[in-house]
């Protein structure tokens, strides 16, 4: 489940304070902010620029350079489908089409019920058990259409079980 706390300036400042002693602290801070708020909120850019003595353009440049950092809040779960060569050799393109069709969403988008944000990634390090998918931080191997339906179903079921 993605953490998606609403933006709070005090909380963001506390996160910055926790990590600013690190060398090259901007990336660790961005990771920590995204872990709390689900994305890098627009308000984070001026705050980080001020706190770390950088220009807004510098901060924005870093946020936009890395694929991992999002600018908008994701759905409750993130589904990362590997689209790199080893997974291609085992049919990940069909898997992607199946997911897009069955969830009525395209890569990069979030389902209408806000349950899943579906993203493509290049390699999850599970290339001997392709196709590979990661749902939140759980890795799955040998994923076909049937298996992804079961995995996503179980992900939702686990939500209501809690």
């Amino acid at each position: 489940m993605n953490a998606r706390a609403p933006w709070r300036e005090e909380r963001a400042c506390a996160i910055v304070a926790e990590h600013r002693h690190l060398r090259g602290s901007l990336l660790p801070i961005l990771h920590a902010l995204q872990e709390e708020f689900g994305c890098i909120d627009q308000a984070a850019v001026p705050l980080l620029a001020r706190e770390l003595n950088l220009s807004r353009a510098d901060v924005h440049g870093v946020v936009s350079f890395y694929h991992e950092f999002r600018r908008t809040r994701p759905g409750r779960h993130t589904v990362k489908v590997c689209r790199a060569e080893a997974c291609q050799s085992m049919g990940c393109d069909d898997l992607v089409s199946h997911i897009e069709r069955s969830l009525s969403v395209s890569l990069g988008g979030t389902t209408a019920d806000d349950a899943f944000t579906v993203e493509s990634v290049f390699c999850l390090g599970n290339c001997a058990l392709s196709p590979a998918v990661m749902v939140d931080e759980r890795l799955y191997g040998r994923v076909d259409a049937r298996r992804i339906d079961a995995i996503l179903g179980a992900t939702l079921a686990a939500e209501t079980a809690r």
Partner: protein
Amino acid sequence: MTAFEASNPEITVYVPRDAAALSVGADEVADAIRAEALKRGLPVRLVRNGSRGMLWLEPLVEVATASGRIAYGPVAPEDVSTLFETGFPTSCDHPLCLGPTEEIPYLRNQERLTFARCGVIDPLSVADYRSHSGFRGLERALSLTPAEIVAEVLESGLRGRGGAGFPTGIKWRTVLDARADQKFICCNADEGDSGTFADRMIMEGDPFLLVEGMTIAGIAVGATEGYVYIRSEYPHAIATMREAIRLARAEGWLGERIHGTEHTFHLDVRVGAGAYICGEETSMLESLEGKRGMVRAKPPLPALEGLFGKPTVVNNVLSLTSVPVILEKGAAHYRDFGVGRSRGTLAFQLAGNIRRGGIVEKAFGVTLHELLYEFGGGTASGRPIRAVQAGGPLGAYLPESQFHLPKDYEAFAAVEAMVGHGGIVVFDDSVDMARQARFAMEFCAAESCGKCTPCRIGAVRGVEVMDRIIAGDSVAKNIALLQDLCEVMTDGSLCAMGGMTPIPVRSALKHFPEDFARTPDRAAAE
């Protein structure tokens, strides 16, 4: 069948915690074994080991017996009750029983130096690591001068396992000879190449080995601080490395005055953020400094002006994890493996459409044919192998006629191919090589750092040209255009991202021209 130690009624059962094993249900299998043992009142001690690297057999369950470990796999959670019904864990009568783990040909026929402990020990037990000769390399290093350590690594013939194959000893000597108030060791654990997972597996299965290798590097060059830069796609490896560093520090293997000596080494994990280019060493250094991962021009070499401008060793995980055994057993022992100027072993990774995917650690000189058929057993789909991509997304596509090639840096370079990080991705005869060439361009367009035009713009043009070829539109003209584009990218790019993307494209075109010979009718029919 097997004799179990009568004196020790507790039975040790191993279920891997490796991410690949978890991806096919290892946690569920571990839970089922725990529950079933409890129900039957059997004294089972469960150890969550790394993976043995026979990934098609995951989850691979092992039982410790007096005559060695017995393997079962692949075990599904629903197999667990029938396993116990047939006498598991004290007898091996189930169809899933594979006999002694070490006798499985895939494992028996390997030469494991770096992966010797992976899957054998509890990855987060310093005691287990020690009892399997862990930290012996570091102990020896602590008794040597820095110059002696560097000489040992140089003599071993070890070359960088991250891709470029640069001699590790020479890099270390450059950093040792540099004068500075501060030096760094940076481990490149960005492992972005499709078809590679050896860095991940060793970090999850034997993390103290990386701690040991980096500490030796620190002592060798006079660096007191190190970073492991791990890609964000590897949450399990990140957690395991962080815990291993904490444990090593608690037991005096890291930190101030290591085991009472005058040597100090601090180690920290940093996490990438989904950028393939950050595997390029200067881009990684920028990222570690908290910046965009823009590639730096070389010179200056990172060895002289690296992290925060200080002399820095940048090495791949597999380079650093090869060092402890070199120090422990001596350079000659390591050097005795391999051929020509490719010394030692490499952990090859069999990936994609392969029946028996996993890690095969072999001395250099093994042929692709042996890896693909004797170890790999052909494709997973049962169809013929048509192409393999060796050495990651910037590596060549090779046809069957080149499978006799020995895995050796020079032999591969001679045919414009790459050993790289040892990844081998297999495709069966349903592959469309024009689409693979298109993907190489698409990948470059998505992952370019943007510093140079031939890479940033060239790759986008490359996708467009490939789209026209695939559509059967003026094919001959567009292939000529593609060749020109490849030349511009090769000659005009600052780093290998733009500079080597033409390799998969050109090799696909050269070896599989029939896939490019399209007509509009054929495109319409598809």
